[in-house]
């Protein structure tokens, strides 16, 4: 997928680019309003990551600009402003999603993947990974063509892993993804383990290879063998 990252903080921009590059993704970036405006006028992207506080202009104006240009680029707002007004204004102006800083890169990737899947495959929202096929809109999973029955949480977990394939995903990020980041879950995330264990067992029983690895006790990695 082709992605434009509009972010003025160089360190954060670098991390995002590093996380997204690879697997056939093309990432471009802009660090101020003028550069971003030029890029969105000239090119089309599968998804634009938009920081609202930009030097040289208000990020929300770029959304209006996109609308004027009649572009169908997906837009994910990433903002430090935890303001509901901004969130609603952004979504009203045609943004697809809103993520508040600080966020986990894995959460960002999952959200971007979801937007791109929705935009590109209208109604045919399918993720393929080796012998595993996930129909996201129908919530159905097949391994080598055989249906596998998963709970809602296990299903969400699998989609999350597949959006972040070959990356280490922390338990913290997984918990926030599955239970929402408003939930005060600081203590520890071991209860995730049950869901991961069940998911893995079901996939193995259905005949899939063991793609899931635990990493240092911090998180998990779902990827090629």
């Amino acid at each position, binding site marked *: 997928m082709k992605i434009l990252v509009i972010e003025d*903080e160089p*360190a*954060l921009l670098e*991390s*995002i680019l*590093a*996380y997204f590059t690879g697997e056939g993704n093309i990432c471009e970036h802009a660090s101020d309003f003028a550069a971003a405006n030029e890029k969105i006028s000239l090119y089309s992207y599968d998804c634009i990551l938009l920081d609202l*506080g930009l030097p040289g202009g208000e990020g929300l104006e770029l959304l209006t600009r996109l609308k004027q240009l009649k572009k169908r680029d997906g837009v994910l707002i990433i903002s*430090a*402003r*935890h*303001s*509901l*007004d901004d969130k*609603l204004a952004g979504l009203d102006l045609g943004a697809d999603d809103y993520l*508040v*800083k*600080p*966020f*986990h*890169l*894995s959460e960002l990737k999952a959200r971007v993947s979801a937007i791109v899947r929705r935009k590109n495959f209208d109604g045919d929202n399918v993720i393929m990974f080796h012998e595993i096929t996930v129909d996201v809109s129908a919530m159905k999973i097949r391994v080598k063509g055989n249906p596998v029955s998963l709970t809602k949480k296990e299903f969400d977990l699998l989609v999350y892993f597949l959006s972040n394939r070959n*990356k*280490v995903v*922390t338990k*913290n*990020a997984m918990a926030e993804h599955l*239970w*929402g980041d*408003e*939930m*005060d*879950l*600081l*203590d520890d995330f*071991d*209860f995730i383990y*049950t*869901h991961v264990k069940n998911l893995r067992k079901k996939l193995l029983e259905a005949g899939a290879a063991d793609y899931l690895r635990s*990493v*240092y*006790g*911090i*998180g998990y*990695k779902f990827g090629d063998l």
Partner: protein
Amino acid sequence: MKLSNRYNRANILTSIVVLIITGIIYYVVIHFILTEKLDRDLAVEENEITQYVNTFHKLPLPASYLDQQVSYKTLSGAIPERQFLNTIYVNPKEGENEPGRSLITIVHVDGKTIKVTITKSRVESENLIRIILLITLGITVVLLLALLLINRFVLSRLWRPFYSILNRMKAFEVTRMDTIEQEPTKIDEFNELNKSVNAMAERVRQDYKELKSFTDNASHEMMTPLAVINSKLDSLLQTESFTEQQGALLEDIYHATARLSRLHQSLLLLAKIENNLIPDPQAIDLNEMVQAKIRQFQELLAKSKLILNEELAPAEVKMSRYLADILLNNLFSNAVRHNITGGHILVKLDRHSLTISNSGKVSQLKTKIFDRFSKAADSEGMGLGLAITKQICNLYGFRIDYHEENGWHVFAVYFGD
């Protein structure tokens, strides 16, 4: 009590008292003057009789003149003193008894002592006094009525600008940028008030703007480095060349970062609730929301082997959905966190209140439980959850209550009232 009522009351009371006193003085003085006049007339008559006796050495005829009667009586014993007194005057024309004034005096004719009684009718002067009294009373009543009317119409019109300023002040909302409009008035005090109110509104608005931009900036400036730390940690993790020990260190850093960002979010949220920067409230089906929250906490309950019982009745409250979610989150997290392994949670919901009770250790905080950063020594929370909960309740006029009974910690939120 309204100012005008208060003023009216004082005004009318004073008027009544003053008018009554004036009336009494008036009555007494006029009564005195008229009696004096009658007495003088009687004395003139006495003088005429005395002169007649001195000249002719006999008594004049005891004739009855208009409103005047004279009678004689020869005395043999004690001699009475000369005196004026109120008596009864028999009106011969109408044959009625009227109030009269008499003078009793003595004349000496041919060595005989004769008592002379001169009586005049008082009915005229009594009538005069009555008329004067009636006029006084009439003026009193008219004056009081006039005062009432003036107070009702003139005063209420005079105060109208004041009430319109008051109403606009009540309707004033800091988030809306409209000014408090001036009501044209000729009264200096109200113009002054208007000016002061507008100046104050302007100051409040300015402060609010600064606060809002400070909140925005603080949030942005603190969240950006946190976002960088978080993203760098995520990137670092992908390099996958760590020992088990380094992994444990990374996990600790993750925890601390998560804590820091949560702490910051909580403080911003508190500031936002206190400054009423929360969007419009909406009707919320609390029953459905509580059930969803119970489902959401299923794993956490299972982990601590907690048993949750629910008694839920339909309930609807008007508040921001976002804050309702935070409120429930905080109460549930609290009930889970401060519980004992294998403990119980009881959730009760009805139209008037939500009660969440949990088993747990004896608390040492009690009164300070809703204060910021007050927490049990062994708590892993930040001590902000209940402070936020309390603020949310304050915002919507709910009452939150905590008490401990038989080892149960009971939090109750009462809606409305």
